[in-house]
């Protein structure tokens, strides 16, 4: 199965749920709306021919300049049967971003969604334990959002000139 034949099958299966599609680094990428993401992934998993039954990764990207599309949630799916990968993107606004959790479909989504919440503040509705996973519990912000500095803000002994800032 190639990316092009996959895209044809996806159009047949998902129809208008696909907002956009492109091929990036030899992998097919489709965009769906946040409301349809869960259903689309469920259909892809349950489809006997496509059989995208392995969730490789859930992640997110912050695009601060794209209005009402600031946060992009990315799902990587893998079909063992057809030996092909698929990326699904969906865009959320930055205020109270939330999307339906994939935990009913994939148990492996549990920690990945917690990580995405930890770093980007995206709420996954229906997740059994939507708490931080990697950062300390007392942290009061989501550090991968680009308005926050990467560096530790509490240091006073560093001269910015020597660190290219």
């Amino acid at each position, binding site marked *: 199965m190639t990316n092009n034949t996959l895209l044809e099958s996806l159009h047949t299966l998902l129809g208008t749920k696909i907002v956009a599609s492109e091929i990036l680094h030899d992998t097919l990428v489709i965009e769906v709306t946040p409301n349809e993401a869960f259903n689309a992934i469920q259909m892809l998993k349950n489809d006997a021919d496509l059989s995208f039954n392995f969730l490789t990764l859930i992640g997110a990207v912050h695009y601060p300049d794209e209005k009402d599309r600031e946060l992009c949630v990315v799902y990587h799916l893998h079909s063992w049967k057809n030996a092909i990968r698929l990326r699904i993107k969906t865009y959320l606004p930055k205020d109270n971003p939330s999307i339906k959790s994939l935990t009913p479909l994939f148990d492996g989504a549990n920690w990945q969604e917690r990580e995405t919440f930890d770093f980007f503040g995206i709420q996954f509705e229906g997740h059994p334990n939507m708490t931080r996973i*990697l*950062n*300390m*519990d007392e*942290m009061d912000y989501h*550090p991968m959002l680009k308005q*926050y*500095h*990467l*560096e*530790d*803000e*509490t*240091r006073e*002994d*560093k001269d910015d000139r020597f*660190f290219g800032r």
Partner: protein
Amino acid sequence: MGKIEDLEVINGEGYQLTTLDKAVALARSNSVWPLPFATSCCGIEFMATMGSTYDLSRFGMERMSFTPRQSDLLIVAGTISKKLAPVLKKVYEQMAEPKWVLSVGACASSGGIFDTYSVLQGIDRIIPVDVYVPGCPPRPEQIIDGVINIHKLVKHEPMRRRYSEEYRHLLGDYEIEVTNADNDK
């Protein structure tokens, strides 16, 4: 007058005199029980220091203690994330007095290259440190040098320092209580 390992002693016919706290300090310095708190590459260097080539046992440190209750020297080797900081502090609090801390490597001493939101910028933000070993990671020779500097501190520390107001004040700055100091007053 004579000397045992640079401690002043008075020699007489069949006896040798020194003060109790010097004798105790000498004994302590020659049998420091370390607790290795190793998290990354500095920990690997520390393992080499413990191994047969560099052989930390030569300095009376035969026994690595993996319980804080039975150790004198906390050796922190490696990056300490902010999430791990309370654990490290708890380990320090659980150690019995007297206790010393050796900070091995750039990360434990200052955060090192990890100037980032998730990493503690030096363990001296949560616990008092006696000796810092620089390096990224330091060679075993440097770690041994740090240990010998700890020995010097131990050897010249008065027995009552741990009961002093200054010491209470120091730990108070870190919001740590002096635990068992009253027991042997």
